[in-house]
C-alpha cells in the first residue's frame, strides 16, 4: 500500500525546512518567476538547490509552483528556468499553462508535471485529458465533494492531490478576476487582493439592502475526512498557506502527521485522535474553518459574514536552537513576549507536548538574568528538565 504524501507550503527556506522536519513528505514553494503569491518571499535558484538537497537527504520531495496564468511578457526566460530547475533536481513543477507543460517536456524531461488547482479540474475525464498531455498528478478543484472524489478515484490511476487545510477561494480557482477589475491586481499572476473577503452592499431590483453582502469563504479543515481520503487512495494531502508562519506550519503539519500515522498504525482513528489534532491546530489557527465541499455544497456555515476573525496568535514564544544535555539548558530564540513564572509547553517533531514553568531566563549574550523576554529574536538560555532537540518549539499554555 502506497502511503499518502503530506504536502506542505513554504514561503522561505527556513519554513520549508521546518515543514519537512515537522512531518511533511514534500513541500511546494514558489520561485522568483512564474509563481502566484507575489510577496511570499519566493525562492531564488540557490535556495531551491539547498532545499532540494535538504529534502532529498530526508527522502522527501520539493515541488516548485509555476502556477500563474501567464501573459506573453511573463514567459521570457521560461526554458532557462525549467532547465535550471531540472539541473538542481526539483521533483516536479505545479503548473496551469499548457505552454509551460509543453516546454517542460521538451527541455526538462525529468521534471514531473503536476496540474495546478488553478485549472479547476473536477472530473475523471478532465484528469484523463491532462494525463494524456504529460501530467503525472492532478490537484483537484476544491469544489469537488468527497463523494465525487470517490467516483473519480474509481475511474483513474493518475495521482490525485487534494487540499485538506487552509484558505479557500470562494470561486472556482482561476475563474476569479475580481481583484483585477477592482484594484488592477491580477489574481492569476500573484496579486490577489482578496476582494471576495470585502464588504459589499447588495441591491435587489435596484433597491439598496440594509445589511452587508459577503461572498468570502471560511478556511478549510478536513481532519475528519482524512481516513476516508486514505482509504480512497488519494496520493497527496495538501496544506495551503505559503504566507503562513513557521509556527503555524509546524503545528498544522504535525497535527495532520499525527493523525495520518495513527491511522496507518491502527487502521482507524478514534474521536479522541481527531479531537487531539483539532485542539492542536486550534493553537495556531487564527481563522474560522469549515468542511469546504467535502460534505456537499457549502451552506451558510461555510461562508464568512460578520463573524470573521483573524486574531494574531501569540502563544508561540520561542524556537529551540540547541539543548545541552549535561546542563539541561536550552538555547531559545525569542518569538513573542514571555516572562519568569509563565507556564509553557514544548513540542517538536518527536517531542510530545510537555509542560513546565519558566523559573529563570538568562540572556545568552550578556549572561544576565531577565524577568521578561521582550525582544524578538533575542537568544535566551532556559533550564528545561527534559531533553529537547533543535527545531523544537515552545508556546504559552495560558495567555
Amino acid at each position, binding site marked *: 500500500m502506497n502511503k499518502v504524501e503530506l504536502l506542505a507550503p513554504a514561503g522561505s527556506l527556513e519554513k520549508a525546512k521546518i515543514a519537512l522536519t515537522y512531518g511533511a513528505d514534500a513541500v511546494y514553494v514558489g520561485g522568483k518567476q512564474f509563481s502566484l*503569491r507575489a*510577496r511570499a518571499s519566493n525562492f531564488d535558484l540557490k535556495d531551491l538547490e539547498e532545499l532540494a538537497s535538504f529534502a532529498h537527504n530526508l527522502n522527501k520531495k520539493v515541488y516548485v509552483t509555476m*502556477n500563474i*496564468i*501567464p*501573459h*506573453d511578457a511573463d514567459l521570457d526566460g521560461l526554458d532557462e528556468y525549467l532547465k535550471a530547475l531540472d539541473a538542481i533536481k526539483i521533483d516536479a513543477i505545479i503548473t496551469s*499553462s499548457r*505552454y509551460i507543460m509543453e516546454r517542460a517536456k521538451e527541455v526538462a524531461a525529468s521534471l514531473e508535471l503536476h496540474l495546478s488547482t*488553478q485549472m479547476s479540474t*473536477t*472530473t*475523471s*475525464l*478532465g484528469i484523463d485529458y491532462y494525463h494524456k498531455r504529460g501530467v503525472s498528478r492532478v490537484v483537484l478543484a476544491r*469544489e*469537488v465533494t468527497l*463523494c465525487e472524489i470517490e*467516483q*473519480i478515484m474509481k475511474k483513474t490511476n493518475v495521482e490525485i492531490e487534494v487540499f485538506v487545510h*487552509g*484558505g479557500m*477561494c*470562494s*470561486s*472556482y480557482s*482561476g*475563474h*476569479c*478576476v*475580481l481583484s*483585477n*477589475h*477592482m484594484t*488592477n*491586481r*491580477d489574481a*492569476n*499572476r*500573484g*496579486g*490577489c487582493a*482578496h476582494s471576495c*473577503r470585502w464588504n*459589499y*452592499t*447588495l*441591491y*435587489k431590483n435596484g433597491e439598496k439592502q440594509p445589511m452587508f*453582502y*459577503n*461572498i468570502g*469563504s471560511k*478556511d478549510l479543515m478536513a481532519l475528519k475526512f482524512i481516513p476516508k481520503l486514505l482509504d480512497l487512495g488519494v496520493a497527496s494531502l495538501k496544506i*495551503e498557506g505559503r504566507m503562513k508562519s513557521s509556527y503555524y506550519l509546524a503545528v498544522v503539519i504535525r497535527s495532520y502527521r499525527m493523525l495520518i500515522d495513527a491511522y496507518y498504525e491502527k487502521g482507524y482513528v478514534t474521536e479522541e485522535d481527531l479531537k487531539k489534532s483539532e485542539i492542536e491546530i486550534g493553537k495556531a489557527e487564527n481563522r474560522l474553518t469549515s468542511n469546504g*465541499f467535502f460534505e456537499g*455544497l*457549502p451552506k*451558510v456555515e461555510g*461562508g464568512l459574514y460578520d463573524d470573521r476573525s483573524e486574531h494574531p496568535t501569540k502563544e508561540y514564544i520561542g524556537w529551540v536552537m540547541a539543548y545541552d544535555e549535561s546542563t539541561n539548558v536550552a538555547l531559545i530564540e525569542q518569538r513573542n513576549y514571555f516572562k519568569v513564572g509563565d507556564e509553557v509547553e514544548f513540542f517538536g517533531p518527536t517531542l510530545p507536548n510537555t509542560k513546565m514553568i519558566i523559573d529563570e531566563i538568562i540572556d545568552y549574550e550578556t549572561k544576565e538574568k531577565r524577568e521578561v523576554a521582550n525582544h524578538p529574536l533575542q537568544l535566551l538560555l532556559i533550564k528545561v528538565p527534559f531533553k529537547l532537540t533543535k527545531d523544537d518549539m515552545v508556546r504559552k499554555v495560558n495567555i
Partner: protein
Amino acid sequence: MKLVVELKEKSLIDKFLDVDGFIINLEGLSCYYDELCPMEELEEVIKKIHQNNQKVYLNARKIFHENELDNLDQLLDRLLELEIDYYFYGDVTFYEMACKKHFTDKLIYQVNTYMTNHLDIMVMLKENHSVVVSTEVSFDELKDITNKVKEPLYIHSFGYYPIFHSRRELITNYQKYRQIEVDTSSNYDIVEELRESHYPIEQNENGMAVYLDGAYCLAEEIKELGLDNYYVITSKFIETNDFEKIVDIYNKEEFDKLPTIDIIYTKGLLYEKSKLLKKEGGASCE
C-alpha cells in the same frame, strides 16, 4: 465584420441576417447565458439559422462534475443528431467527450481568464477549431496576440462577462444567514463599500457569478485587430431593443453611435496596467 451574436430571442434570427452566426444556450450545457433555448425548439432554431446561411454555435461553457457525465454523454448523443456547427467550451471534460464522439473539429476553447498569451493559444489551436482570447489582456497584448497567432481568433467584443464564478449558492446562503426570504430570481447587483461601481450578480444551477460593472465594448479597436477575426457579442443584461441597435452598429461599424444607446459601457482592462503586488494573508491556491 464577422459577428457571432448570442441568440437573445428566436425572433432575432431573421433580423440579424448579416451576422456570421448565433450562440445558442441550452440547459445542462451552458454557463453565463442570457436566455435558454428549450431543447424541443432547438432543431427548428438550428434549421432556421442554417436557412439563412449562418452558423450555429452552442454555449457549452459549463464546468462539469463527475455525477453529471452520464447526462452530458446522453445530451451530446442527441445534439450530434442536429447540425450544430461549433461549440464554445471551457472545461476539458467536454473536450474528452468530444474526442470520444469525434467532433473536436467543432470545438472553440473559451475560458475568459486563461487564454492570456499567444503561446498557450497556439497550443490550444492545435487541438481545437479555434480559441476565444481572454478578456483579461490589455489592448496592446490583444494586438500582439492577434499579430503573432496569424489565424482567425474569436474575440469578445461586446457584452457583460463574468469576473467571478463560484459553485456555491452565495445568494441563498447569504439570505439564510440574514434570515430573510430566499429569492434568487430578482435582479441583484453589488457595490463594494469603498467603491461606486455596480456589479450584477446571478445565481443559477451552475452556482453564482459576478459580472463586469458594464458592457465591455471593443469598438474602434477592432479596426486595428483585423477583420479576419470573429467578434462575439453577448446579450446578457441588455434590453432586446438596445441589443438590436448594438448589433446593427457593429454590423455597420458605426461605433460613434454607441453613446446614443443608454447603457453602461466599459473598456474592462484594455487600457489598465496590472500591478502584481499583493497584501498579506488570505486565500488560497498553491
